[in-house]
């Protein structure tokens, strides 16, 4: 049973295209996140949603739009893709008020923009 799942695992696309990445968690957590890990392996938070409400929005271009239809799902839509968007995108979930607030990460989506 996969705790946090993402689709697709790989995404190769041309500059200027629009693409979406989907994420689902079956852990019953209230909070979900999108992280970007660049080529230098630096893992940086982009967005956080708690119970479908946006609570963290780091300095991310408007071309990135998260959507949370319910607390188990957090999707990421990217418009007008640029070369610099190439990275691995991780979805995660957690229960922030729990003892450890450990982040449970999905397997990642490797996005390559050509």
């Amino acid at each position, binding site marked *: 049973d996969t705790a*946090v799942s993402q689709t697709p695992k790989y995404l190769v696309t041309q500059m200027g295209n629009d693409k979406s990445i989907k994420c689902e968690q079956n852990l019953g957590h209230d*909070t979900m996140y999108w*992280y970007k890990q660049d080529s*230098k*392996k*630096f*893992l*940086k*938070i982009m967005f*956080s949603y*708690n119970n479908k409400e946006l*609570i*963290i929005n*780091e300095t991310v271009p408007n071309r990135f739009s998260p959507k949370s239809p319910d607390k188990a799902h957090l999707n990421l839509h990217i418009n007008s893709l640029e070369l610099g968007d190439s990275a691995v995108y*991780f979805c*995660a979930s957690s229960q*922030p*008020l729990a*003892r*450890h*607030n*450990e*982040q*449970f*990460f*999905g*397997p*990642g989506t490797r996005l390559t923009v050509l």
Partner: protein
Amino acid sequence: SQKIEQNSEALNIQEGKTATLTCNYTNYSPAYLQWYRQDPGRGPVFLLLIRENEKEKRKERLKVTFDTTLKQSLFHITASQPADSATYLCALASGGYQKVTFGIGTKLQVIP
């Protein structure tokens, strides 16, 4: 601005030895610090958490220390094994719904 520093160069040690990884931070007063393990092509996996009022935590062969005066955490793996080879990330948070900020990670290679 907040900064988390980990030795981004790889750490190579002999099997059976103790590996020690360092995490330093500045301009931050974290409520707790976490350590994660990341294998190639996979998402990070939580290992341990230590709170600001705790000096040391242990879990099996893992030990974490937290010195809020030095603004430093040390992560130890005793009796290291080749299966411990991975990248280890430290992460800090202020608690509640505040974001968790990750360091760049240190790649550990345990040589048989």
